[in-house]
């Protein structure tokens, strides 16, 4: 906890703790009467400087500034605390009800919020003070009313999105009353954001009192604002009279803000922006002639704040022109990281890559940046899972297709335009002339994915990398997109690497397949061969767990018990051992070596062909 919140948070919390102590026990402390006139009692001279006799010095009447500042703590905290409680409670309730009930109630609350935020608060303050005097209750009521909209607004926003969550629907389906849903499902989840906002609101109240004191509108007791205002007159000759209370107030406001920020970071952890570095280890092993992409002993290590992760561990494959490779695995298996390792695109983290990645004869790990960029732009096309986020929402489709051609200077502007039109036709987008001028939101999901394919094809790449290209699409659209990719591969002789979790997609649309488990390729070979004659126990389990149209309904499916191992500290031996029905002691002790043939290889000590093995 301490580490997550940071030192400043704890220093601030201790500072606030001291203030609370002073506010509660000031009358028990051995300090002077703040109103005692030192020039009369002889305790303090007029404008005495800070010293051992008087820690913060004395004012024009010899009153002790230290005890005055200490006496100012209680009104500051009392005002801040009561205002925060009142406005926080009322604002939270209004906000949560507006966000959950919506409709008329929401419209009324938001209208009131909008009006009150536009209202000149200072004018209201002056008017109210003129009518009701300067007792602390007047200030509490006034500040609370002014504070409510802020709370109501953030809580309403949070409640709107929480109400969309299924657990709120589930509670309603259970027959829970509105009040119960608000109390059990919504309030606990807005508590932390409200608390963080409350600390910042607390600080605002303390500042506001100071501001009012500055124009002579303060409480009827000693406050920091008053001290600052009084000291201001003597700022030239006796700066300590204004500076000391100002510093205390500044420190208090800062402390409350820091605690509020700290609490907010618990709700929405800030991205730690580590410098991103790509490091290459080992040396390049040139690939065999004829492969478009050649990966040999690829090892990728991510250095994250949470530890070192190795999502790609000794991965090898190659794809020839016109061939397609499927990379299959479950979530967290590292299949996407294999693609990222080819193009060198990683989330914010330092990354070390070792081994060989060669695309169209270029060493993608160790070549100069310009060479790698050129290869990425002209030899590799990429297609991602979500076409909506892959496309820039504020640029026309046509401009986005033309862009890669202009950036890499492969075509003139006019040629690029003609080519964009041709590409849209090839990817099966009707009325291409019109589509060129449209924006992504005007296209359906399937059409958007076709547009991203057109962008990927712009520079006639030799290699197409597709990461779950149809996962977000409906089944009839998926069929169309897969057929399109398959046709493009065949017609243009491109190499296609298709990353997916869906075995059916791989079975229907790839020549070879790599099965990935916990960062390793556990089986690799021709698709038809692997489906007909799987060797690795994980491959077998995966194929059997897939619901299959050839099975009658209500067939029991094979399952894989347990969960994959953590990639932060993977187990020794076979990584599938804990979940494997055929596990032996050897599997836990020694990492399996790759066996089989070059065409069909697998890393399993007891593959299916090595029968008999006792299956538990």
């Amino acid at each position: 906890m301490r580490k997550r919140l940071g030192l400043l948070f704890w220093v601030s919390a201790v500072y606030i703790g001291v203030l609370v102590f002073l506010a509660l026990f000031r009358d028990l402390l051995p300090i002077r009467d703040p109103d005692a006139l030192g020039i009369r009692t002889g305790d303090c001279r007029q404008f005495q400087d800070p010293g051992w006799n008087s820690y913060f010095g004395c004012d024009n009447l010899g009153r002790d500034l230290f005890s005055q500042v200490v006496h100012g703590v209680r009104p500051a905290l009392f005002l801040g605390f009561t205002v925060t409680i009142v406005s926080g409670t009322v604002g939270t309730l209004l906000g949560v009800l507006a966000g959950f009930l919506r409709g008329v109630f929401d419209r009324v609350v938001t209208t009131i919020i909008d009006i009150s935020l536009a209202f000149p608060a200072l004018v209201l303050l002056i008017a109210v003070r003129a009518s009701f005097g300067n007792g602390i209750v007047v200030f509490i009521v006034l500040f609370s009313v002014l504070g409510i909209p802020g709370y109501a607004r953030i809580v309403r926003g949070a409640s709107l999105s929480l109400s969309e969550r299924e657990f709120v629907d589930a509670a309603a389906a259970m027959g829970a009353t509105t009040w119960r849903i608000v109390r059990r499902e919504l309030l606990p989840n807005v508590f932390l954001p409200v608390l963080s906002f409350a600390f910042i609101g607390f600080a605002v109240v303390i500042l506001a009192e100071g501001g009012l004191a500055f124009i002579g509108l303060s409480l009827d007791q000693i406050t920091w604002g008053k001290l600052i205002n009084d000291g201001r007159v003597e700022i030239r000759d006796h700066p300590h009279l204004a500076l000391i209370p100002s510093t205390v107030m500044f420190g208090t406001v800062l402390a409350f803000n820091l605690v509020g920020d700290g609490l907010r970071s618990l709700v929405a952890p800030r991205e730690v922006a580590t410098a991103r570095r790509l490091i290459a280890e080992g040396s390049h092993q040139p690939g065999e002639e004829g492969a478009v992409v050649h990966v040999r002993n690829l090892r990728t290590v991510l250095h994250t704040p949470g530890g070192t992760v190795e999502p790609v561990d000794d991965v090898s494959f190659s794809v020839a022109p016109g061939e397609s490779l499927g990379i299959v695995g479950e979530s967290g298996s590292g299949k996407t990281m294999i693609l990222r390792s080819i193009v060198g695109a990683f989330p914010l983290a330092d990354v070390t890559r070792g081994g060989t990645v060669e695309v169209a004869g270029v060493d993608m790990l160790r070549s100069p940046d310009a060479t790698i960029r050129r290869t990425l732009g002209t030899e590799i096309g990429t297609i991602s899972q979500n076409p909506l986020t892959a496309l820039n929402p504020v640029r026309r489709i046509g401009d986005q297709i033309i862009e890669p051609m202009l950036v890499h200077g492969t075509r003139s502007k006019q040629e690029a335009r003609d080519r964009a039109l041709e590409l849209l036709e090839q990817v099966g987008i009707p009325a291409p002339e019109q589509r060129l001028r449209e924006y992504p939101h005007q296209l359906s999901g399937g059409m958007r994915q076709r547009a991203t394919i057109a962008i990927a094809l712009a520079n006639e790449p030799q290699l197409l990398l597709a990461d779950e290209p149809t996962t977000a699409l409906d089944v009839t659209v998926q069929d169309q997109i897969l057929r399109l990719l398959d046709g493009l591969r065949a017609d243009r002789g491109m190499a296609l690497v298709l990353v997916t979790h869906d075995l059916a997609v791989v079975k229907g649309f790839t020549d070879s397949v790599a099965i990935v488990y916990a960062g390793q390729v556990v089986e690799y070979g021709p698709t038809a061969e692997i489906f007909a004659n799987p060797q690795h126990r994980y491959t077998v389990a995966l194929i059997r767990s897939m619901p299959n149209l050839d099975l009658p309904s209500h067939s029991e499916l094979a399952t894989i018990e347990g969960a994959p191992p953590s990639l932060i500290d993977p187990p020794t031996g076979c990584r599938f051992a804990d979940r494997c029905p055929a596990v032996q002691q050897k599997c836990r002790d020694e990492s399996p070596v790759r066996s089989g043939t070059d065409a069909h290889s697998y890393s399993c000590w007891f593959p299916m062909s090595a029968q008999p093995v006792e299956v538990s």
Partner: protein
Amino acid sequence: MAGTGKAHLRDGATLEVHDLVVEFPGPKKSVVHAVSGVSFDLNTGETLGVVGESGCGKTTTGRAIMQLEEATAGSIILRGQDLCDLRGPALRSARRAMQMIFQDPVSSLNPSRRVKDIVREGLDIWGDPDGSFSADRIDEILDAVGLGGADVGERRPHEFSGGQCQRICIARALVMDPEVLILDEPVSALDVSVQAQILNLLQQLKDRFGLTMMFISHDLAVVKNISDRVMVMYLGKVCETAPTDQLYANPAHPYSRALLASIPGHNLDLPPASELISGELPSPIDPPSGCRFRTRCPAATDRCAAEEPILQAVGDDHYVACHHPVAVSL
């Protein structure tokens, strides 16, 4: 409109849905026709699979039955009582008889509550009339969904994987002893091996507790595995309904055939999907006249534009809403 008609309804069903219409306000005062006259029923102990692509109205139908969306017209009759007539406390009370499982298991659980509080929520609301739901009973239900273990109830949802969270959701629903369980894409967010675990679990629970389920999914292979009967929907209408093996062996509606033909790597005796469906899904704001599938159907004629097909029997318990259904071999 493809798919009104009630010829397929049976007597004495647990849940009957008659002519359900759900409309939402669209942009510029238009109306989104999400569900347009859907009728079906569910017998006790039966699993009905509802398939179709996004925008077909399958999820909206499920949510309307749960009273999470307001039905514009039609009736939803559970054991003789029309839920659409109920308001306030009577509605809350009727809701106990139906429970829903959602697609995103993580989002379905309140992150700030402990598992045992989540699971016993229904009992906290409705009390525990015969005292049968002791703490032991909660443990028993957690055990039934495969989450047996000493401290499971004390933990919070973020400590569990997606598949385990879905098990917690199922436990929460089972505590209510529901007459109808509506599952909206319950395995779509899960990996294939975990998906198999949940499907097997649902089948076991059905055999053990006699669950009546409406299983909504876009995945035809999953639906085939879990369902006794299947209903195919398109753009707010029912296209076809039949016993599962019958529908997969002999799809009669052109859209059902297109859906099946689109499954990658299937071994069905069907032409390529590209010959069975063309074009794009029309807008539900302005759906086509007559049969809603006609704009994409290779067999469409003038009659399909003029006249809406009504569900009619083409085989034993096999109904299809099409003017030109593919002949069914029996």
